[in-house]
């Protein structure tokens, strides 16, 4: 009954997301660590669903990470963002979709600040003109890329070759979802489901057959903390936060983790390796970790794309136990191959964490 109650509240937090014609901007972290995920996103939106997603070659970082590492002033990040908006305006688009939660939060914060202090918006327009001779219109709508996959989740489910179901037992897979703090903790009304019941990933999981795990530290930060990761001396902060989450989710035996933000899957994946090497502890079955995915990777898997085309070989935690549970076929010998099956060696195996 309580669950029904939550579903009802979730319904109150739905947002109207435009269906088509998007100006797409990439994520620094996703491009580095999950390059296949962004390619998959555009493949699904453009080729599978036939939508218009435009990418300008001359767009850049939004500066969000540098801003949250306190290395650039607020006016600098605002003007970088204003330039991105100018590129959107020049390309004739009004809907703006970011592949990154830090960016998404950054855009929302900037628009909100301009709304409250219009004189600052005027000043940024002047600075942009001075620096780049560009002008911009503000986007009509700003989405995070996961909002779109959420919106298209049922169409994806209709075309899916696989479901998030354990093929042996017929049971739904138990899925941990991790939203990423800047998605809705700052501006709850801008995220699907708000800050209390973020539904953006739950919607995908339910539509694709899995069941969502509710665990005590579900909304705790992954521990990125910007400077708390980028500076070597601070990384214990990042590790201890991830550790806290894993200890909390462990009793629920998750089959997999799906993440929203580009950084979170990196931390949830890599810190499992570090915890295993430091403490000998692993959270998956038989010495493996719990596989961690981006939402685009999961969409690609259910649609039947080859796991190695999605780039799952770049994860440190082996994904094979999950592929086996779902019944997705893969070629173990092709995992670490280059283009046209070129031999490029393979990574060393970790000391403790079991990998394939």
């Amino acid at each position: 009954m309580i669950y029904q109650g939550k579903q009802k509240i979730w319904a109150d937090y739905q947002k109207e997301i435009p269906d088509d014609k998007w100006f797409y901007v990439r994520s620094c972290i996703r491009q580095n660590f999950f390059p296949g995920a962004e390619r998959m996103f555009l493949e699904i939106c453009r080729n599978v669903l036939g939508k218009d997603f435009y990418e300008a070659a001359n767009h850049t970082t939004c500066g969000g990470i540098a801003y949250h590492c306190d290395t650039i002033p607020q006016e600098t990040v605002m003007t970088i963002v204003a330039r991105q908006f100018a590129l959107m305006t020049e390309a004739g688009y009004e809907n703006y979709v970011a592949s990154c939660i830090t960016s998404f939060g950054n855009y929302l914060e900037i628009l909100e600040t301009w709304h409250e202090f219009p004189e600052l918006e005027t000043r940024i327009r002047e600075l942009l003109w001075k620096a780049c001779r560009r002008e911009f219109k503000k986007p009509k709508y700003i989405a995070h890329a996961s909002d779109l996959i959420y919106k298209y989740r049922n169409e994806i489910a209709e075309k899916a070759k696989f479901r998030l179901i354990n093929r042996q037992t017929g049971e739904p897979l138990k899925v941990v979802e991790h939203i990423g703090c800047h998605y809705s903790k700052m501006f709850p009304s801008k995220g699907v489901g708000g800050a209390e019941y973020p539904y953006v990933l739950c919607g995908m999981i339910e539509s694709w057959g899995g069941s969502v795990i509710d665990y005590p530290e579900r909304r705790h930060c992954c521990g990125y903390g910007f400077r708390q990761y980028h500076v070597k001396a601070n990384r214990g902060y990042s590790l201890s936060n991830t550790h806290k989450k894993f200890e909390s989710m462990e009793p629920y035996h998750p089959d997999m983790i799906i993440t929203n933000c580009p950084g979170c899957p990196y931390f949830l994946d890599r810190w499992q390796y570090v915890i295993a090497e430091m403490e000998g502890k692993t959270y998956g079955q038989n010495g493996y970790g719990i596989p961690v995915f981006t939402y685009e990777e999961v969409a690609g898997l259910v649609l039947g794309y080859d796991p190695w085309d999605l780039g799952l070989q770049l994860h440190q935690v082996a994904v094979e136990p999950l592929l086996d549970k779902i019944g997705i076929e893969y070629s173990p010998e092709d995992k670490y191959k280059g283009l046209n099956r070129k031999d490029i060696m393979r990574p060393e195996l970790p000391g403790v964490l079991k990998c394939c």
Partner: protein
Amino acid sequence: MGKLYDELIKDYRVKEGLKTCINCGTCTAICPAAEFYRYDPRKIVDTVQSKDEAEIEKLLKSDVIWYCGECMSCVTRCPRKNAPGLVIMALRNLSAKLGYFTCSEKGRQLLPLTRILTGNILNYGYCVYPDTFKWEDHVESGPVWKWHTEHLKDNFERLGANFKGEGPGVLRKIPQESLDELKSIFDVTGGTERIEAVEKYSEQKAGELGMDIDEYCRMTFEKISPGHFNSEE
């Protein structure tokens, strides 16, 4: 009202993030940094609203303001609609501007951060970039990342990226004209001035410590002294 407080309330993040703090401590209860570090965002917000110049100066020179992870979990929960995370960003900004950041170990880390992040933006157009994300500095990225960095071109090609290529795509080369635009943006918005200030104050500090600036930068990137953590005696 004193000088430092006046500077702080000019910052839009303080205008937006500091209404009236009732010292309830909700922000501290939810804060991931407060669990790990000797850190209490409630106290920081309260110090700023007290307008006590000496206390604010102490704060700007301390490690404390650098403990926050800017997750903004506090923003959702504050019953008075304050944003402690934003107030902290404004404090850090002022500490950087005045050179007070060199007075604390965590503050001194602003030099390597500035070099890495603004370097990546101005040289490549990205905040994070493969050429500067070295495995040696990131052993936690695991053997898979070591292998990946040894085969960057092949792996990116395999995954359909456009690494250092013309046109759109993953990790495409950002055109020189766009990098020039970013540089102009830094020049007119105070970004360049900020980099120069961080370099200048860090150089002074390195001089005081009898260190070469690069050696100092490395030290600030790696050194942890006792006294930061809750778990310490």
